């Protein structure tokens, strides 16, 4: 069970606004990337640690979260470094969806989540059942449970660990 405050985003939060151009060529590092994460999404987040310092645990978004076709993993690293434990959205852009799976940060699809949450609401998420409860308003939402492979990668702490372990044991990757 994960519990914490949420930040509600608009539709079309773009990957290249989550991490702005100046930082595309820096190293991928959770701590480092988190300092300027979301800088391009909102004026209020455009100062060092601005997003991180608000202490959000969840992001609630609409259509195509982290879209715009950037494959940089700084986006996911930055969100994780800022303390984000799960992102809920009505849909995700495929490149960052893939990166999130590979990093073990749950990107969870939930149909109506964007309609009934406000920034600052307290949410509770049960990864086993997929239930998302808004403790502030008392509303609940369903979400798609993670596919078995995604869950396995998540448990391993990401694809790197998952594959490293298989290589070390000489196991086939299937």
């Amino acid at each position: 069970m994960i519990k914490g405050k949420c930040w509600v985003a608009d539709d079309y939060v773009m990957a290249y606004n989550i991490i702005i151009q100046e930082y595309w060529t820096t190293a991928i590092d959770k701590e480092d990337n988190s300092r300027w994460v979301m800088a391009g999404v909102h004026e209020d987040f455009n100062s060092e640690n601005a997003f991180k310092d608000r202490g959000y645990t969840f992001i609630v978004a609409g259509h195509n979260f982290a879209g715009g076709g950037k494959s940089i993993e700084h986006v996911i690293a930055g969100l994780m470094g800022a303390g984000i434990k799960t992102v809920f959205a009505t849909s995700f852009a495929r490149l960052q969806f893939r990166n999130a799976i590979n990093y073990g940060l749950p990107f969870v699809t939930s149909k109506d989540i964007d309609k009934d949450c406000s920034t600052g609401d307290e949410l509770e998420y049960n990864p086993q059942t997929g239930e998302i409860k808004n403790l502030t308003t008392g509303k609940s939402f369903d979400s798609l449970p993670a596919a078995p492979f995604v869950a396995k990668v998540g448990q391993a702490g990401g694809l790197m660990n998952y594959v490293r372990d298989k290589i070390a044991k000489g196991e086939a990757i299937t």
Partner: protein
Amino acid sequence: MGMTITEKIMANQSGRSSVKPGELVWVDVQSVMTMDYLGKTCFEKFKSLGKTEVFDKDRVICVSDHLVPPPNQKFATMLNEWREVVKEHDITHFYDLGRQGIAHQIMVEQGHVLPGTVSIGTDSHANTYGAAGAIGNAVGVTDAAVAMATGKAWFRVPSAVKFHITGEWQPFVMAKDLSLHIMGMMHWNGHLIYKTLEFDGPGITSLSMAGRMTLCNMTVDLGAKNGIVAPDETTKAYLEGRAKGDWEMIASDEDAVYEQSYEINLSNLGPTIALPDKLDDTVPIEKAIGKKFNKAFVGTCTNGRLEDLEILARIMKGKQIHRDVNMIVVPASQTVYLDALRAGYLETLIMAGAAIDTPSCAACAGIHTGVAGDGDIVLSAGNRNMKGRMGSKNAQIYLTSPAVVAASAIRGEITDPRTFDI
């Protein structure tokens, strides 16, 4: 039940007899591409997996494209580190400055992508490889590192959407116009997220490889997983002497299942243009005619090929670029550069007043070579026009075909090449 070409490739490359949309498979990859600003991290991640040698030195393809030639010391140093790491791993195919090109162009042009196989790259427009009848897919450095170590990548089998293209291409109408038209129809990152897009029909059979590359290239901007054109005689002729390996013809089954099918008749398609800031805000050129601009740009993995430079030369021959317009043309690779030089296209363009620059991504990602400043209005044959993409957030970017850029650069305002006096 029949399979689409994408399903067949995923089945073949994962050692199964069939796959269904939604299934998760690990496929064998043909080539893994990485480039200058992400490559070093790829190799570091690869090493941390406990391997010292990549799965196949001939099939990890390294390219310098985003940062070359280095515009500042920071990038020069990054490039030096990148070269070190490529050398250390004894990579066979390293397309560094002097032999460079935009990675996606290199991958297809140099035959690293084969029909019926899967290739991945650490840049979003790896979808371009679909032009060669392959699955081309953009991934992050983690996936690339895993593939470098194991020769494999995981995929969820996508459901399919078909675009059946009928009719004949009208004069001065290019694959880019079709791409932009589809963008307006389906929306940028809209309903096509995660899908495989298949293009077929007489309008595709008659389309050149360059055109197919443009079309597949921009499927990533539709949010799709991949775009693909089944190999045919055009593919075969193109790959002759280029393909780094054997390949076989492959096509979708007659009874393959598509979630949706669309038909587009080319007799109704004219030059198309995306208005500034949003890729899917596309209009027929008639709605933008007369709009003034001050910068023209032709290049990128979308429209920097020989065919694109040929049409520029055809339209601009014996003419002068308008005094209020600066035009930069950047061939997509050294091969394209040399071919265009030999064909006399570059001479024509220079005589018309265009600046030619060495192959690279150039201003496309706002990194170097003609970036946009405050107040610039750019008419570009590239692929992205969001605020700040080419530099300043206070610049506007219109996207269109090379033919439109050529005619418009002469007039100094957006012009329909069909009514332009050649």
